């Protein structure tokens, strides 16, 4: 009988049946519609250039760092983009050799000194974007 008591007490104290805190924090994946994390991309640079049609445009460079991605890195990420008040549409960022996803967006020049991009993850099944964030870059 005493052995049974010792076994039970040992089980009570050695058990790891604690609350799973990570279960309450499943909101860190940028592909989760309930994502509660920080901005998941960085706007880096801004340049003027002439495009293939001979028009001058502003090119905004951004990056989606690999550490903001899920553990399994997809080969590409589809996003929906706005630049200032211009709707750019769906863009695709491909993974480079560093594991990051460089983003390049061409927008019409509107005379601003600062260009702000709004990027959201694009769900092709639902045809909508979510987890939209804004980042700005200036000349």
């Amino acid at each position, binding site marked *: 009988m005493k052995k049974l008591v010792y076994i039970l007490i040992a089980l009570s104290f050695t058990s790891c*049946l604690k609350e*799973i805190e990570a279960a309450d924090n499943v909101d860190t*994946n940028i592909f989760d519609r309930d994502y509660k994390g920080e901005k998941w991309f960085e706007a880096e640079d801004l340049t003027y250039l002439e495009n293939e049609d001979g028009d001058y445009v502003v090119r905004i460079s951004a990056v989606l760092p690999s550490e903001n991605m*899920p553990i399994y890195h997809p080969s590409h990420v589809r996003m929906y983009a706005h630049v200032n008040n211009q709707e750019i549409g769906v863009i695709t960022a491909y993974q480079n050799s560093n594991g990051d996803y460089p983003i390049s967006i061409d927008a019409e020049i509107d005379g601003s000194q600062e260009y702000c991009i709004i990027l959201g993850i694009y769900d092709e099944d639902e045809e909508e974007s979510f987890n939209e964030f804004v980042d700005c870059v200036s000349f």
Partner: protein
Amino acid sequence: MRSILILTLFIASGSLFSQIEKQGLVKFYIDVDNGYFEVLLNDTLALKKFRDSLPEGHYQAQIWSPTYEQFSTEFDINAGEVTEVNAKLIKSEDYAKFEFDYQEYQWQFRQRVTLPVTLSLLSTLTTGYLMMKSYDTKKLVENDILLYHHSSDPGAIQDVKASIDQNNRKYDRLRTGYYIFGGLSVALIGTSIWSGIYFKNHFTEPVFNEDSPFRDKFSLNPTPYGCRIVYKLG
């Protein structure tokens, strides 16, 4: 230490007993529920069989069976005749008291040992079951969390999150049950130990002495191969 002296005489067929003349047969019809009785004849010879051949004469018989009061009677043996001795023994008061005491003892045993131990066992088994189910569910939740952090499919992520939510709530219920039953088991085991010690210190199992009152008498035990006379010295 009682010393027992057994004197056994084997006498072949056609021996001394076959030559005794003027014998009659006695049959004992003794109403007892255990099927066993002993008959002491003239305070000397103890018989342990339901019929026997006896020399002609008058006999005083004392009949005894375990758990019954001793019964006295008399009968005559006539040569060549069969004498039937009927007796209905009554249960002894000591045995009635023993039965009462033993029932009380059993009741106390069930109440103070069987019941707490059974409840402890059930509670412990339930605790073990809840613990195993909790660990299984915890593993499911942890696997789903891992899947969540791996996936880049919004639809799959919604499904995984629903599964995490459902299993995590189940896990919380199971581990709550585990802690409740674990505490209950410890309390019940403690109660069982205390109750068992109390029972051991306060109750003694009643015993009933079933020794024959004729055990120190000569007994005649005939067999198909002869007969045996036993006398025990206590």
